[in-house]
Every structure is written in structure tokens, then in C-alpha cells.
């Protein structure tokens, strides 16, 4: 297993984003993931990341940064899907999500019913990636 240093990741972020605001946004998220108990962080919402990053940035900037951190290049966040139904949260597997996007119907994990028009009810949240968990 290759152990990566936090500094290497920071350098890579700067290399990719230069002076763009996403540089700071990504560093702020990296800092947050490193200083928290990443073994326990299992449900980070977009709203939570926005808080971590601060008010200086708008949604577009933050989302572009998050999209980047979920990719293979600088993989710090593991995206996950959940269904929010009333006030209940249900995890949706990647496999089921693929099927749902293909067929236009989502299988509700608790009720076992197929739901159409689910784009408003399925949300993305995040977990720290294995890269973060294995940081030197």
C-alpha cells in the first residue's frame, strides 16, 4: 500500500487549480477530513462541507471542487446515495442507483416498491475515501 503524505495532496491540488478558489476549497476540505475522526465520519452532507469551507465561496465553486475530490485524480471523498423519505434516510447502493438511472425507476430499500421521478428524493452524501483513512 502506498502511503501518501498530506503535503503531496496539497501540492497536487495547487498544481491542478492554481489560483482558482477551488484550491482553497479543496485544502479546507482536506484539513477537515484529516483533523476529524475519519473512522467515524460516515455521513457528510453537502451542507456540512459548505460549513467547513466557509461563506466566501458560492455553490458553483464548491460543487466543482467536490466533483474533483470525488474523482480518481485526487480521491478524498467517496460519494454515496441516499433516499430521503419524510424524515427517514435510506442508503441506496451504487448498483441500485445505476439500475434506477437506466430504468427510470428506483427501488425503495424499505418498502420494496419501485418509484418513478426520484431525482428530487435521492441525495448525494460523502464519506472519507480510503486515501484519507490511510494518510501518513
Amino acid at each position: 500500500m502506498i502511503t501518501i503524505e498530506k503535503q503531496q495532496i496539497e501540492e497536487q491540488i495547487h498544481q491542478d487549480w492554481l489560483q482558482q478558489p477551488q484550491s482553497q476549497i479543496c485544502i479546507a476540505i482536506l484539513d477537515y477530513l484529516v483533523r476529524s475522526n475519519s473512522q467515524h465520519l460516515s455521513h457528510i452532507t453537502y451542507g456540512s462541507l459548505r460549513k467547513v469551507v466557509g461563506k466566501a465561496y458560492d455553490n458553483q465553486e464548491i460543487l466543482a471542487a467536490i466533483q474533483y475530490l470525488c474523482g480518481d485524480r485526487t480521491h478524498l471523498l467517496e460519494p454515496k446515495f441516499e433516499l430521503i423519505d419524510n424524515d427517514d434516510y435510506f442508503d441506496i447502493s451504487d448498483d441500485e442507483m445505476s439500475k434506477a438511472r437506466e430504468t427510470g425507476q428506483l427501488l425503495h430499500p424499505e418498502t420494496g416498491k419501485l418509484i418513478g421521478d426520484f431525482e428530487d428524493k435521492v441525495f448525494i452524501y460523502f464519506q472519507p475515501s480510503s486515501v484519507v483513512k490511510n494518510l501518513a
Partner: protein
Amino acid sequence: MLTAQILEAFSQRISWSTMKVILKICDLPVGRGWEQTIKKLTDEESIQDDINDKIEHLKKSYENHLLVNDKALKIYQVERKKIDKLIAGFKKYKPSATLFQETYPFPLSDERLKGIDFSQKLVEIRDTEDSLAVIFCTKRLFTERSQIDTEQLNEDTRKNLIEYDKIIGIKEHYRQFFDVVVLSKKQNTIEVRVDIAGGLSLEDKSKAFFQTIQQFNMLSEDIARIKTPLQESINFFPLIDNLYESDEGKVVELAFITDEGSTKSEKMRKGSVDLRTETYHHAGKQAVGHITSYRLAILWNIQISEGINSQPELLLPGRAQILSSQIQYLDEVCILNCSSLDDYKFVVEKIFTYLE
């Protein structure tokens, strides 16, 4: 076809995630949701021969499920002599014919259910190695609340309702409930298990207990000449702290008060860490020294076999008032998401272990 009947009966009573576990235990294929699974199995039923054993297994699972999932439970400690006498009496007893028997063990259709009254009927007496189960069926009114999407209403109606943040619709319909009284052959206990599958309001649950206990007491007198065997049930309250302090399972919900006067309710999302070790909860508890809990939900992850896990849950549904009485008394618990009799037994054993 039999599979469709079994699955449709299950679909009214358990979650899809529990159903998947049961299907896997029976070595049956799982489709994408209820409808597709029913279709898949019905198709296979008509083609394959060796599937019949598995469907029998599925039927047995359903019959067992009626005894254990999801139940609110009161436990009574009764003298061995009395229980044996009850067992002997009930064993010989033949339940009279009722309309429920038309489709038993499957529930009656909504149509048929309309024509029945609300009285509780004895439908089966099941003799097993460990116990004698006395099974009742009752029609109860079931209220379903859901939020109405105002976009669906016409403009005038929407205008009239504009000040409201949410519009809730209430549907009342009848459902058939399966309540069970279990006379243990091994322990000196009688369990009253009230059916809460699909959810039951506090008030309805109370009524259901009252009805079942009264019925059973009356029958006991008639059948075995034992008067009111069910009197005072076990106090489960000590379980809350005992289980919380232990290493058992995973705590997913806890409600407690602090001596500074605040009431806290904490819930863990499915798949998250144990509440006991959650950073925020842990830090809070350290800061105050002790907390006084009144409600706890704990679940266990049981590996049945390779790739098949069940997650039965024990809920101790206390309310804050309990803490203010001289004696803290919690007379019922709920056992949820059992995929088999074994799951239920597992949880009850934990109850007795931690009550000591």
C-alpha cells in the same frame, strides 16, 4: 399461486430488507422489489420442480413470522404448575370456526375484512418443542398519515390552503392483526405478543394489549379453569442502563435527560457507528458524568450464513415520565425485524441475561 400469496401477505407486514433475508435463507431468487420478485418466483414455480421444497420453506417462514415479527411484548412470570395446566388445557382445545379461517394463515382481503366485527378471535393453537402458542386474529382500524402534495390539488383549493406549511391526509383502513400468547415449556413465563407490524399508535397498542390479555384470561378460566393467570408483567426498565453499559449489539437510539434539565434524543442512521462510541455523544456524556436514559433501541447483526445477515432490533420504548416516578416501570418492549424464530429467541435471551 402459492408464492404470490405468501409474498403478498409478507408485503403487508415486513420491510423489503427483511424479506430479502428470508428469501435468501430459503435459497430463493430476489428480484427488484416486491412486484418483480413475485413475478419471478411465480414464473419459476410453474417451471421448476425442485423449487417446491423452497416454497414450502418460505411458507413455513411466513407461519413462523406471524409469531415473532414485529411484536410489542409483555412477559409474565407464572408458576410452572399453572403454565403446565394451561398448556394441557389449550392443547386439547379446538378453536371454533371463524371467518378468518377462510384464508388463514394468510390475511383476509380488504373486502372480506369489511364484513367482520372488531372482536378478537382465537384461530390457531400451535404446539412446538419449546412452547404452546395461542394465536388470535383481530380486525383493527389502522390510520395512515401522509403528506399531500399541494401541486396535485386544483387552484382554488391551493389558494385556500396557502397559509399551511404542510397538508397531511389521514387514511383509515382496516387491517388484520395477529396477536399471540406464548406459554413456555422451558421457562416459567407467558409472553403476550401484540402485533405491531406496519406500525401501531401508542393508543392502539394499549388497546391491543388490553384486549389480548383480557381474552386470554377469560379463555384460561373457561378452558383450564385458571383465573387471571396474567396479572403483573415484568419490569424491563433496568434493561435500559444494563444494555447501554454493556458491549452488546449496536445502540441506534437513546433518549435521556441530564441533571441540568435538558431532554435529549439521539438517533443513529442505519449503518453508522454505535451511539455509545459516537464522538458527539461520548463527549457529551463525559462532560456531565452521568445521564438518565428512558428510551433505548439496540440492534444486533447476526450472521446466519455466508452473505446472509439479519438485524433484529430491541426497542425499550420508555417515556420521560417514567423517570419521575418512585419506581421506574417499563412494562413492555418491542422486538423488530426478526427474519426467523431464532432471531426472536436470541433477543429474548438477551433480555433475560441483562435483566439479572
